[in-house]
């Protein structure tokens, strides 16, 4: 469950409370947003976040005070989502990314055509288009965008949160952004933004 391989800590009840209040709770809004984007349901998001914090408290001795609490919490939430929540819902089987990632790690990448989307049409999207487009992506793709663009995690931290190599973080992120652009370019087309 721990992010870094650290020896078990020995905290007093008072210390546990302090860590929980000062290092864990400040991330509640980010955690809730992540939970909501994954489940797309406010109640499920609440349950998921609550579950995550209870687990974090239960395993608090695996957490080394003063280290990256946010990454540790995000990792627990992501695992809870996959192990508990996803099992309950009838999600289709995971897409096999192997092929995709081999492709994006190859030389082909520079020749690949990016979706036809313009900065100007992006700037016209002032409503929920971006948010809806993000929500509509597959869980693994939206997760990397949330971690990187919204929460500002470094590739290395993302690799630890997601249990994947950094190269995979990069290629998945690249793929996710292209998918997001595709969605937005469809939207721009339907609104007639790209006519010019």
């Amino acid at each position, binding site marked *: 469950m721990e992010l870094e391989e650290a020896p078990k800590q020995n905290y007093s009840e008072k210390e546990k409370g302090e860590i929980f209040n000062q290092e864990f709770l400040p991330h509640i809004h980010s955690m809730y947003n992540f939970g909501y984007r994954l489940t797309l349901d*406010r109640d499920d998001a609440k349950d998921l*976040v*609550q579950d995550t914090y*209870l687990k974090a408290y239960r395993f608090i001795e695996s957490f080394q005070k003063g280290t990256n609490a946010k990454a540790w919490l995000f990792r627990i939430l992501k695992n809870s989502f996959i192990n508990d929540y996803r099992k309950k819902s009838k999600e289709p089987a995971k897409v096999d990314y192997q092929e995709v990632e081999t492709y994006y790690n190859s030389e082909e990448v520079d020749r690949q055509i990016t979706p036809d989307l313009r900065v100007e049409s992006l700037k016209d999207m002032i409503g929920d288009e*971006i948010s809806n487009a993000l929500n509509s992506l597959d869980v693994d793709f939206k997760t990397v965008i949330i971690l990187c663009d*919204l929460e500002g995690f470094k590739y290395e931290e993302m690799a630890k949160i997601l249990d994947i190599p950094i190269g995979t973080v990069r290629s998945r992120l690249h793929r996710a952004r292209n998918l*997001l652009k595709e969605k937005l370019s469809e939207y721009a087309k339907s609104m007639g933004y790209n006519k010019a």
Partner: protein
Amino acid sequence: MNNPMNPFAKPDQQKPTCMEMLQTILDGQATEEQKQYFKVHMDHCMPCYKSYDLDMSLKQLVQSKCCGGAAPTDLVEKIKQQILQKSS
């Protein structure tokens, strides 16, 4: 461009792709040296030049449109209560 001084070069001396360089810059994970190199690179690489603005705008839009607001106010209280119950 087979520049041996490319600061993006990987340990195995493999030439980095434009996508890799752009990503590193975009995500704020580039060193000063890499930033300088990329600036010059953009002057003669149209795909990077074009992608840079679009990708930067998209990243900024995601940041401003998808932050999702605050967690419900009762959530923290609920969590604290549950912990008290379990540890007593």
